[in-house]
C-alpha cells in the first residue's frame, strides 16, 4: 500500500511496492513533478533507491534467517547454531573393516611390529582406496610356526599430518585441519615442547569439562567454515595452556566416506612390519563409512542431542547419540530390557538398520556399543547392539485389467505391478515402527497402470529360521501379530518350507513341513494327498501374540545342505488383521520374490475365478473373483 498524506510506508519489502511507496511520498511535494514517468531522470533515481531498499531488506531478512537453527539455510550458519546447543555435527567417517594377517617372514624374528597407520588398499567399484591400521600390533610366532594376528581393525582414509608452532603473541592463531572429509574420529593431537625437545605429549579430546583442570592435556575440536575443523587448547584454567614455541602436531585420516562401504578384499600397499609376504583374510568387510551430516540432519538432531545432554538416560538419548555419532545408521530404535521378551533387566537394547546392507558387522556393533554408548550411559546399565529383526510380507494378488485400454502385454503389466509393490515397500516400510497398511497397498496396485480395474490381494507373514542342522534346538519366531485361527478345529494357520526330519522309527524323511494343530506345532510329510505326522510336538504356536516357539526341533537337512546353520527354513502365517505392525526391532520388508501376481484380462464380458478354501496346505480363504 502506498503512503498517504506524505507519510512513507516502510512495511513493504517488494521492489515494486517500495517504489510505489516512494512515488506516493513524492506526490506530497512540489520540487519534482516528473517522477512518475518511465523516462524521467527521477524515475531512474527512484529505481535505484527502491533497489537499494529492497536489497537491504532482503539482506536483513536473510541475516535474520541465518540466526536461527530452524530457518538457516547455509551449512556454516546451521553448524554455528548447532554449536550453541552443544552439538558438533558428525564428520565424514571412513569405513571400518577387520582383517586377519598371516605373515611369512624371510627371517625368524621373535616378533613382528605392525605400526599404526600401516596402509592397505581395497577396491570398490573398480576404484582403489586406502585403509590404515587403527592401532599398532605386535605379532609373535604361534605354535604352528606362523605369525598371525586376528581381526586387525582397518579404517579407511589417507593419513595426513599438520604442524603448527604456537605463537602466544598472536591472538588470532588457529590450528586448522584444512582437508575436506577429515574423519575426526581418527584425529590424534600431540604437542612437542619445542623444536629442540623432540618428546611429545599426546592430548585427548575433552569430553567432560567437569573433569578438566588447568593441567589437563586436552583439546577441543569444532567444525568451522566449509566443513573444516579447528583444534583449540585450554586457557590455563580449563585445560593446559599452550606455551610459546610449542609444536602442535595434528594427524588425521582424510576419508572417502560412504563410497568405500562394502570393500571385501584388501591387499598391502608396500609392506606390513617390513615384510611383504602377507596373507590377508577379511574378517569383517568395510562398513560404517558416512558422509558428513547434512543440513537437515543437523537441524533434526541438534535439539534432540541437546535434550540428551550427551548422556544416555532415556531410550530417546540412545537413539539421538547413535544417530549423531554413527553415520551409517539409516534408522535406530532402542528399548529397555524390561520391555524385552522375556524381560532382561539391566540392559538397554539398540537396533540399528545400516544404510548399506541389512545388519551391522561385529566391528561396527562393538564400535557403537563401546565408543558411543558405554561411555555415556548410566552405571549398571549395559548397552547391547542387536540386529534388526526382518519380517517379510508374502503377497498374492489377482489383478484384473482391460486389455483394450493398454498397449502393454500381461507380462509387462505384471512387472509394473510387482515394481509398484516393491516400491511401496521401499517407501512405506523398510524401517522401524513402520506398519503395513493393507488399503494403501491395494490402492497402489490399482493405480499401477491405467488399464488396471481391480485386484484381490491376500497376504501372509514370512520369517526365516536358521536352525543348526542335525542338532536339537529351541527357537523362537515372534510374528508379533495375531494369527488367523478362528476355531479350535481350524488348521492351516502355519505353513513352512521343506526340510529333512527323522520320525520315531528313526527313518529320515525329506520334504517334511511344519503345520499347526490347535496351538501345537507338528512335523509332517505327505503321501499323495495325505499328511503323515513325523513328529507330533516340536513346539507351540500362540495365535494371539503370533509367537512361534520350537522345542527339540531337529531338522537334519534343508535342500542339499546338512550341516551348519546358514540355510534357512521359511515359515508362514496368515495374520488376523490385514494391517501388520512391527514390534521394537522388527522391520517389515517386501521382497519381489515373495510377490505373486496373476493378471486377468477383464475386457468385454469379464473373467470370473473360482474362490479357494482352506483345505490344502498353504492356501488361504478367498471368495470368487
Amino acid at each position, binding site marked *: 500500500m502506498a503512503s498517504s498524506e506524505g507519510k512513507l510506508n516502510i512495511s513493504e519489502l517488494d*521492489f*515494486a511496492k517500495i517504489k510505489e511507496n516512494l512515488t506516493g511520498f513524492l506526490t506530497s511535494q512540489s*520540487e*519534482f*513533478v*516528473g*517522477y512518475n*514517468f*518511465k*523516462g*524521467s*531522470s*527521477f524515475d*531512474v*533515481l527512484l*529505481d*535505484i533507491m*527502491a*533497489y537499494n531498499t*529492497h536489497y537491504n531488506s532482503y539482506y536483513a531478512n536473510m541475516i535474520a534467517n541465518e540466526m536461527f537453527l530452524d530457518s538457516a539455510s547455509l551449512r556454516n550458519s546451521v553448524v554455528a547454531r548447532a554449536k550453541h546447543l552443544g552439538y558438533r555435527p558428525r564428520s565424514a567417517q571412513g569405513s571400518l573393516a577387520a582383517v586377519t594377517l598371516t605373515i611369512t617372514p624371510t627371517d625368524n624374528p621373535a616378533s613382528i611390529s605392525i605400526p599404526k597407520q600401516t596402509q592397505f588398499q581395497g577396491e570398490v567399484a573398480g576404484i582403489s582406496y586406502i585403509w590404515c591400521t587403527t592401532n599398532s600390533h605386535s605379532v609373535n610366532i604361534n605354535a604352528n610356526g606362523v605369525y598371525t594376528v586376528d581381526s586387525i581393525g582397518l579404517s579407511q582414509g589417507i593419513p595426513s599430518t599438520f604442524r603448527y608452532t604456537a605463537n602466544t603473541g598472536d591472538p588470532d592463531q588457529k590450528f586448522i585441519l584444512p582437508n575436506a572429509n577429515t574423519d575426526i574420529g581418527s584425529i590424534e593431537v600431540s604437542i612437542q615442547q619445542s623444536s629442540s625437545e623432540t618428546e611429545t605429549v599426546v592430548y585427548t579430546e575433552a569430553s567432560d569439562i567437569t573433569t578438566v583442570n588447568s593441567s589437563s592435556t586436552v583439546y577441543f575440536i569444532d567444525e568451522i567454515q566449509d566443513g573444516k575443523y579447528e583444534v583449540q587448547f585450554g586457557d590455563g584454567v580449563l585445560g593446559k595452556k599452550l606455551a610459546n614455541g610449542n609444536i602442535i602436531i595434528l594427524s588425521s585420516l582424510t576419508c572417502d566416506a560412504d563410497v568405500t562401504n562394502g570393500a571385501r578384499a584388501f591387499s598391502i600397499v608396500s609392506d606390513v612390519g617390513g615384510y611383504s609376504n602377507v596373507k590377508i583374510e577379511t574378517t569383517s568387510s568395510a562398513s560404517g563409512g558416512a558422509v558428513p551430516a547434512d543440513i537437515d540432519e543437523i537441524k533434526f538432531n541438534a535439539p534432540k542431542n541437546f535434550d540428551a545432554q550427551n548422556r544416555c538416560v532415556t531410550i530417546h538419548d540412545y537413539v539421538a547419540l547413535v544417530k549423531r555419532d554413527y553415520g551409517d545408521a539409516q534408522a535406530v530404535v532402542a528399548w529397555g530390557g524390561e520391555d524385552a521378551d522375556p524381560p532382561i533387566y539391566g540392559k538397554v537394547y539398540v537396533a540399528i538398520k545400516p544404510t548399506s546392507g541389512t545388519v551391522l558387522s561385529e566391528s561396527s556393533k562393538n564400535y557403537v556399543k563401546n565408543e558411543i554408548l558405554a561411555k555415556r550411559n548410566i552405571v549398571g546399565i549395559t548397552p547391547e547392539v542387536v540386529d534388526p529383526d526382518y519380517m517379510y510380507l508374502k503377497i498374492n494378488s489377482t489383478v484384473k485389467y482391460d486389455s483394450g485400454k493398454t498397449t502393454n502385454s500381461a507380462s509387462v503389466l505384471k512387472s509394473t505391478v510387482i515394481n509398484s509393490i516393491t516400491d511401496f515397500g521401499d517407501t512405506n516400510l523398510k524401517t522401524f515402527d513402520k506398519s503395513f497398511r493393507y488399503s494403501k497397498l491395494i490402492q497402489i496396485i490399482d493405480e499401477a497402470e491405467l488399464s488396471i480395474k481391480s485386484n484381490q490381494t491376500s497376504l501372509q507373514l514370512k520369517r526365516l529360521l536358521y536352525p543348526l542342522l542335525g542338532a536339537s534346538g529351541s527357537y523362537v519366531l515372534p510374528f508379533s501379530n495375531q494369527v488367523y485361527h478362528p476355531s479350535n478345529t481350524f488348521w492351516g494357520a502355519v505353513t513352512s518350507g521343506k526340510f529333512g526330519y527323522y520320525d520315531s522309527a528313526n527313518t529320515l524323511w525329506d520334504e517334511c513341513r511344519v503345520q499347526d494343530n490347535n496351538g501345537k506345532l507338528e512335523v509332517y510329510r505327505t503321501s499323495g494327498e495325505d499328511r503323515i505326522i513325523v513328529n507330533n510336538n516340536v513346539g507351540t504356536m500362540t495365535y494371539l501374540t503370533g509367537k512361534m516357539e520350537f522345542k527339540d526341533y531337529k531338522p537334519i537337512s534343508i535342500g542339499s545342505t546338512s550341516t551348519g546353520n546358514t540355510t534357512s527354513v521359511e515359515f508362514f502365517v496368515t495374520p488376523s488383521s490385514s494391517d501388520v505392525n512391527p514390534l521394537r526391532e522388527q522391520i517389515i520388508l517386501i521382497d519381489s520374490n515373495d510377490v505373486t501376481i496373476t493378471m486377468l484380462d477383464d475386457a468385454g464380458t469379464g473373467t470370473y475365478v473360482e474362490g479357494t478354501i482352506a483345505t490344502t496346505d498353504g492356501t488361504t480363504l478367498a471368495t470368487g473373483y
Partner: protein
Amino acid sequence: MATTYGKDYVDFDMDFTKHPSHGDLSTIKKSTAISRSIKNLLSTNANERLFQPSIDSGIGILLFENFSKLTSSRLEKTIKYTIEKYEPRAKIANITVKAKEDENAYEIIIVYLPDNDIQETTLEVYLQRT
C-alpha cells in the same frame, strides 16, 4: 476534469550539473523535461532497468539492420509506440527518420505537443550504432 495545461514538470538534469547561481542541483522544466524523458526512453534497451526488464525502446536492434526504407519505417513505428506507451505527456504530431548512411546513423525529428502547452515542441535525436 483535471487539466495538465500550464503544469510545470520539473526533473533533475542527468548531467548533475550545479545551478550557476545557488549551486544546487540543476533542474529542467516544462517541455525540456519531457524531451529529456523521451531521449531517455529511446536509449533504453530491454533488461536495462532494475526489476522492469520489459521497458525497451526496440531501437537498439534496428540500428544494426541494413539501411532501407523498411528499416526507417520500422524505426518510426517503434519510436511512436515507445512514446505513446511510456510518455503520456507527449502527443506525437510527426516523426521523421532520416537515414545518414555515410555516418552509420539516423537523424530523428520528433514533433510533439506537450500536454501542458499549446505550442508544439521539436526534438531532434541522433541515433548512431555504438
